[in-house]
């Protein structure tokens, strides 16, 4: 490690290379705090050349690295690697160019998601992917984890909004993928890169697709006596043939938390809340709204509210997007899961999650993208209580298996990261994983790029659901 660090010191001045305890400590965790791992060093490159030089060094010395933006991953995707370095991309935060006629923006990876939209609002454009952490999370992270958000059903995930990439592969080779178009020539390499969880290197420049801001919105809140009733309402809306921009459900606990955080004006007495948003041309939205109203009338909505102006609409979304963190008000600790089930199995899944929760004697709050069947059960626990974390993790594991059993996925948008990689063999066969591994090794023969994430293997910790992980016992990793 010493010769590597000596070369790193030649590359970075001391104010952009952290090696001391106090400056490394805040980097030990991302948004998933149950894991912590101290890196050997943190570097803060200022440009692409420094990134490439850093990767070449890492490759030469086989030192693993993780690229980090705002550190908001909920799957431990930016958890540092044992004996590895963190490449902090926060100072590569420039929007390099905006092309309103072609509806694109070229950005550096450290740009915050919401800053893209605010930079292009003057052209009547926006960047569609809207993960709840959009005010914080960076485009680089969105890219690595193919982040979703509330509007995925209609508009897709990050992957559907990235046109081209300039990438530094883990050995420092620079490649250009994609182009300035929605279309491609040859295989969709951009599609492969997006969502690869940092295993393919670092995106240096990202060509984003922008959309015109919809002319009109209609945001509807409908409250229900039960989660199940809200779930059924989603089915009714879907059956009506309307394609809303977003369909979200929050349960009582989540409503309570979000209300406490931002006063969003949600009906507090509701057991479940369904948020539906229509967007598009004014005339089209009005016609859809009529059809939607008819559909909603057929459901057992207790109360229906419609956002009266843009301010109210934004507040509704602010509440929804604060919900995860706001749950911190209800419970000292929580784990958030991200499984997906077929939409028609939502009711069944929620019932079973509630049963599993009672069985484990744990409260579960639910906030989810109902239109996509993407669940976000928040398992509440008190870490000071002995064995509580293990019980919570155990429940999380059962929920993931439930999603798989119902024909879904272990993750809709948070990614596999460190947290769920031990579940990969339950979703994919050995054959499939072997193919992933071959592709990974073709891109990164030394497996230094975000080693220990997504693909199961022995080189890094996996969340264990039966007591401490062997690496924890060995003192190699620890939890807070």
């Amino acid at each position: 490690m010493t010769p590597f660090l000596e070369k790193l010191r030649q590359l970075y001045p001391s104010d952009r290379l952290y090696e001391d305890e106090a400056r490394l400590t805040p980097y030990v965790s991302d948004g998933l705090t149950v894991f912590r791992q101290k890196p050997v060093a943190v570097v803060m490159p200022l440009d692409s050349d420094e990134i490439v030089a850093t990767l070449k060094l890492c490759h030469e010395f086989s030192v693993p690295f993780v690229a980090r933006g705002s550190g908001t991953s909920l799957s431990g995707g930016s958890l540092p690697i044992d004996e590895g370095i963190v490449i902090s991309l926060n100072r590569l935060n420039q929007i390099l160019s905006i092309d309103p006629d072609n509806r694109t923006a070229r950005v550096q990876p450290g740009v915050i998601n919401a800053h893209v939209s605010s930079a292009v609002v003057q052209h009547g454009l926006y960047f569609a992917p809207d993960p709840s952490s959009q005010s914080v999370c960076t485009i680089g992270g969105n890219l690595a984890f193919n982040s979703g958000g509330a509007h995925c059903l209609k508009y897709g995930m990050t992957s559907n909004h990235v046109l081209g990439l300039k990438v530094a592969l883990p050995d420092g080779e620079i490649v250009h993928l994609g182009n300035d178009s929605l279309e491609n020539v040859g295989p969709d390499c951009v599609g492969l890169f997006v969502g690869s969880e940092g295993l393919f290197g670092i995106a240096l420049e990202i060509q984003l697709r922008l959309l015109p801001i919809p002319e009109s919105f209609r945001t509807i809140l409908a409250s229900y006596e039960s989660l199940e009733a809200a779930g059924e309402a989603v089915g009714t809306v879907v059956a009506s043939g309307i394609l809303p921009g977003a369909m979200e459900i929050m349960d009582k606990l989540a409503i309570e938390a979000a209300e406490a955080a931002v006063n969003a004006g949600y009906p507090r007495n509701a057991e479940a809340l369904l948020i539906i948003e229509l967007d598009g041309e004014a005339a089209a939205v009005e016609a859809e709204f009529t059809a939607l109203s008819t559909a909603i009338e057929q459901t057992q909505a207790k109360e229906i509210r419609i956002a009266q102006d843009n301010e109210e609409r934004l507040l509704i979304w602010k509440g929804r997007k604060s919900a995860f963190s706001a749950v911190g008000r209800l419970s000292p600790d929580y784990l958030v899961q991200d499984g997906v089930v077929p939409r028609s199995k939502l009711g069944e899944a929620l019932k079973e999650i509630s049963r599993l929760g009672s069985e484990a004697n744990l409260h579960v709050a639910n906030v989810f993208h109902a239109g996509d069947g993407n669940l976000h059960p928040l398992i509440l626990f008190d870490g000071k209580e002995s064995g509580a974390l293990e019980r919570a993790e155990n429940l999380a594991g059962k929920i993931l298996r439930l999603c798989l059993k119902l024909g879904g996925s272990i993750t809709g948008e948070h990614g596999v990261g460190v947290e769920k990689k031990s579940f990969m063999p339950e979703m994919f066969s050995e054959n499939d994983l072997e193919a992933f591994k071959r592709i990974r090794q073709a891109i990164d023969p030394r497996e230094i790029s975000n080693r220990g994430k997504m693909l199961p293997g022995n080189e890094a910790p996996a969340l264990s659901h039966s007591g401490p992980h062997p690496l924890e016992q060995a003192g190699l990793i620890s939890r807070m």
Partner: protein
Amino acid sequence: MLHKIPDTALAPEYAGMIKPIEACVHCGFCLPTCPTYSTMGDEMNSPRGRIFLIKETLEGRINSSDIEPFIDNCLGCLACVTSCPSGVEYGELITPYRDWAESKRKRSTTEKLQRFALLKTIPYPARFRAASRIARIFKPIARYLPKEFGAMMELAPTELPPKIDFKGHYPALGQQRGRVALLIGCAQQTLAPRINAAAIRVLTRNGIEVVVPKSQGCCGSLAMHIGESQEARQAARKNFDAFPTDIDAVITTAAGCGSGMKEYTHLFSGQDEDQRTQANAFSSKVMDICEYLDNVGFIPPKKNESTAIKVAYHDACHLAHAQKIRSAPRKLLTSIPGIEVLEPDEWEICCGSAGSYNIEHPDTAKILGQRKVSNLYATGADLIATGNIGCLAQIEFHSKDKKAPIPLVHTIELLDGEI
């Protein structure tokens, strides 16, 4: 967030630090609104990072001296509290932590001198006036002085307005609607006594009787926010005695003072019960001038002609974040015919004044000051209004190179209708 701070590790006055640490979920929503994170871009200079570092320090994993620079860099603007969905009261962590760490701290002589100079001049109007005169002499050589003093001299006002001696009592005009006591503040009294004069006019015209306790002193906020709780409690106790209790509210026109006084409950949390009761009683009466006027129902001044005026409103951190007062000043301003309120970009980011921050950390304060000024000027306003003397001074200082400086006023001066 899980922690392993031993139950016995903290004295009663510091026990309140546990709650914010437990409440933090490390989601990072605070990062982009933090002025130091947004200028430095590193985790230890973010609220989330500082909370983590404090946790580690209190757990005994890191020495407090190792994290000093990052704690010191914090402006205490509390933008993180506004952006926090989990309800972390960061102020209830950083203030006691600074006090906790101060006793373990080894400061250089110049640092000690600087802090001493700050604590012993700004809160005392007579000394502050005298010091300002001295500073004026040193101004030309400010850049040759040690960093700790250079900024002090540079930021010192070139000219002080004439002193105003306030009377002890101003009766309500017209039908009486309330009775308040006014904290006239220390620095503000020296730098801009016109603000309190306007406040008294607005209040009395609104039917409010105003008492200005003669023996009042500094509220102690400055000391409290730099980790000198002892000094702060002393100042607060002096005002407990100086202020009458038969009043509806203790009014302040300085956001920094208002937020500090509202925190007395925490400042006195480790003290005996009598003091705690006194602190709670005082603290619960503290109101910002705009908060109070909005509460009682503000009657706008009668104007013969209304001229259209575009006002860029700057949210003082200690008003918007610490006291969560944002709508009242806007509501009051727009109640005056002709006033249009403009919203600058990045309203939540501190201007860099932050109590004595611009004196202690001139480099960061300068970046933030310039950023704030450019955002305010970009609105194209005719006037800039804000509710805090520190912000006024900082914005004024960083717009001094502007060819056409936009006039800068305290909100209450606009409500006075004289502008």
